[in-house]
């Protein structure tokens, strides 16, 4: 999978804060291009975040999430070097994924 995601996971005390940016147009299907043609709807629908392969956050998104979606979430109980992964699928069936190890802050 191409580099479509940036991730960071930092453990402070008992809480791991994960930040994610996904490159994606999140087109609503209502906007026109420079030639007056409607840009077809294209957006991420399902996103799953896992900690060591166990789901921690499962998301359904609509077109109202901004372009290049940004997300912060927090997990209790993760340790340094635990693996956090994010997988997504959009309305055209395209997928993306990324993972990162938890770092001490």
């Amino acid at each position, binding site marked *: 999978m191409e580099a479509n995601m940036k991730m960071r996971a930092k453990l402070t005390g008992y*809480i791991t804060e994960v930040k994610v940016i996904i490159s994606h147009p999140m087109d*609503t299907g*209502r*906007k026109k291009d420079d030639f007056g043609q409607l840009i077809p709807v294209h957006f991420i*629908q*399902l996103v*799953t*975040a896992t*900690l060591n392969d*166990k*789901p*921690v*956050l*499962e*998301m*359904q*998104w*609509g*077109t*109202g*999430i*901004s*372009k290049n*979606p*940004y*997300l*912060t*979430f*927090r*997990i*209790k*109980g*993760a340790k340094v070097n635990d693996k956090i992964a994010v*997988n*997504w*699928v959009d309305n055209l069936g395209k*997928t993306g994924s990324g993972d990162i190890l938890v770092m001490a802050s």
Partner: protein
Amino acid sequence: MQRREFLKLLTGAIAAIMLPINALAAVWNKAAFEANKLADAEKGLAVDSETSSKEIEIIAPDRAENGAIVQIEITSRIPNTESISVLVEHNPTVLIGNFVFSNGALPYLVTRIKMAETSDIKIIVKAGDSYFTASKNVVVLENGCG
């Protein structure tokens, strides 16, 4: 092969592909996400009755210059929060996203949303069989839903 059987096979294949990413989450809630009225979106989310709660904190700007990117931070202090739904009442489609927490994830999120015009952001928290809500109004100076 009959068309019907082929379609059945195809559906099965798609379901199998979707399974890893989608093992616990329900499939994408089309009815709720395509709703253009708040009441219809909530119906799609199966929210029957709701209680306003001060235990939901919404941090969002009072005024947004550009509705294309409005950052919101949501915290639920309601015990046993299972999910947080984000809705924008005056958007062409009301439901922005649904976030389901498990295995140690805290009922907290930051994300960036589109707002077509000045509107309330409505948060719905599901805890057990109950739904709790809070709202925050954001004045939008430039439409972000093109």
